[in-house]
């Protein structure tokens, strides 16, 4: 079988493009799991909510307000939607998740799973499951760029770049700043951090809000690439959970690197052996679980 280098390189780029979404979403899951010890099953639905917020802000909000010319454009959505959906996350934490910390984390998982079914159900009721295109792609990101080995859509390049910036900025804040040291210490021993006079409950609320905002951000970035559909979250979240299992729950760099790499592995598989491209990540997950159950970057629990 002849496989051209060109084909591999282009699939690597497309894989990287999927990989940044895996990275953004698994990063949010890792941040939330670290401090809250909750597997946030609603993550996919909140990603979908982010994409819908961008879509509705562009096409529905104006008519609803009686000003058909009013649109929330892409750039504004990139900032506003994570803030809005992050606030929804804060509300979820304050009113529901907060009550469950005393119990086994299975309950948190069940609650967030329920939330995700409700969100998905509501949107399925009103919107096309096959997807609605988001037409607000900024003109400057239209067209293709010549990478030398391939022509690559400008918007996808932008999506890769901005996602990487957000991922690594998050990593930097958590691993290299004072604020991050509170977060790491709170993950390790929240009681002692409280005893030092730090408002840990507030920190937990804001962390959940941030993790959710990351998912919403991914949703906005994804909206112009994939069409916006009520099931877009449930489709991606299963793969993202596999990424999290492979990378190791709770590791920040692990979530980012694993997300990017597995996106590329998936891309390359499309060239090498296309039928396996949808399952290769799960195959890797099985192998990693057998050899290193805590994940590639995870630490064994005592």
């Amino acid at each position, binding site marked *: 079988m002849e496989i051209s280098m060109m084909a591999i390189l282009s699939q690597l780029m497309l894989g990287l493009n999927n990989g940044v979404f895996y990275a953004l979403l698994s990063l949010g899951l890792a941040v939330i799991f670290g401090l809250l010890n909750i597997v946030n099953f609603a993550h996919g639905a909140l990603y979908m909510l982010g994409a819908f917020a961008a879509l509705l802000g562009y096409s529905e909000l104006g008519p609803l307000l009686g000003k058909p010319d009013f649109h929330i454009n892409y750039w504004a959505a990139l900032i506003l939607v994570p803030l809005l959906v992050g606030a929804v996350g804060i509300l979820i934490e304050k009113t529901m998740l907060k009550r469950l910390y005393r119990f086994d984390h299975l309950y948190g998982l069940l609650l967030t799973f329920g939330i995700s079914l409700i969100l998905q159900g509501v949107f399925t009721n009103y919107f096309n499951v096959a997807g609605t295109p988001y037409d607000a792609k900024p003109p400057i990101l239209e067209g293709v760029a010549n990478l030398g080995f391939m022509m690559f859509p400008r918007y996808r390049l932008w999506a890769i770049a901005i996602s990487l910036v957000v991922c690594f900025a998050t990593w930097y804040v958590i691993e290299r700043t*004072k604020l991050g*040291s*509170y977060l*790491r*210490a709170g*993950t*390790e*021993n929240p*009681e*002692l*951090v*409280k*005893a*030092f*006079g*730090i*408002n*840990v*409950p507030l920190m937990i609320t804001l962390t959940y809000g941030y993790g959710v905002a990351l998912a919403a951000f991914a949703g906005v970035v994804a909206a112009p690439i994939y069409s916006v559909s009520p099931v877009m979250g449930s489709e991606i979240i299963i793969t993202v959970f596999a990424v999290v299992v492979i990378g190791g729950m709770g590791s920040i760099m692990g979530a980012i690197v694993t997300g990017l790499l597995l996106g590329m592995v998936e891309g390359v598989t499309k060239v090498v052996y296309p039928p396996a491209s949808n399952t290769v990540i799960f195959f890797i997950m099985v192998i990693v679980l057998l050899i290193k159950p805590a994940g590639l970057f995870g630490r064994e629990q005592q």
Partner: protein
Amino acid sequence: MPDIRKELLRIQELHAWYGESHVLHGLELSVAEGELVTLLGRNGAGRTTILKSIMGLVGKRTGSIVINGAETVTMPTHRIAHLGIGYCPEERGIFSSLSVEENLLLPPVVQEGGMTVEQLYALFPNLKERRSSIGTRLSGGEQQMLAIARILRTGARLLLLDEITEGLAPVIVQTLGRLIVTLKEHGFTIVLVEQNFHFAADLADRHYIVDHGAIAEMITREELPNQRERLNRMLGV
């Protein structure tokens, strides 16, 4: 002496629970400003729970804990430290995901008058040398120094120290003893939970003997020589 000084900590009728288990039963004690008081007792008597109750780290507590004039029994944990308390937990509580310096800088300043990082590094030169190591890579003695150093930075004037000599070599224990004396001379108020009675005996103004979650007896420094026999029996030494 202690009675004419200002009372910094007063605990009355304190009951504390971990889940269903009732650990403290109507405990009463008080500590004056500048005093060094030890909590002695057998394992499981409730000494660590007393410190945790002061910090609000038990499941439930009732009664009264007044710190510097403020009632804290209904206060959330993160506000209690800001009354000027530094807490050094059992097993030191050094964070393995933080460097030595990050560990040192973690607790927020709660009052003015704390030591600066430079002063702390001068006092604990080993910590300076290893400032960028992972906190838990330090030796036990160094970790203990770090656990104490980080609360001296915050300006706390009431120090709650839990089993600081546990598992450490005699030479380190001596160093800690000198450190405690220095801190007392600088006017810190200290509540020390201690297993090592010989360490505690020479340092403290008063000893509270804790048994079954209540104070069984209070012994002052002056009374100590005559009470030693009885004390050894009570502590099961």
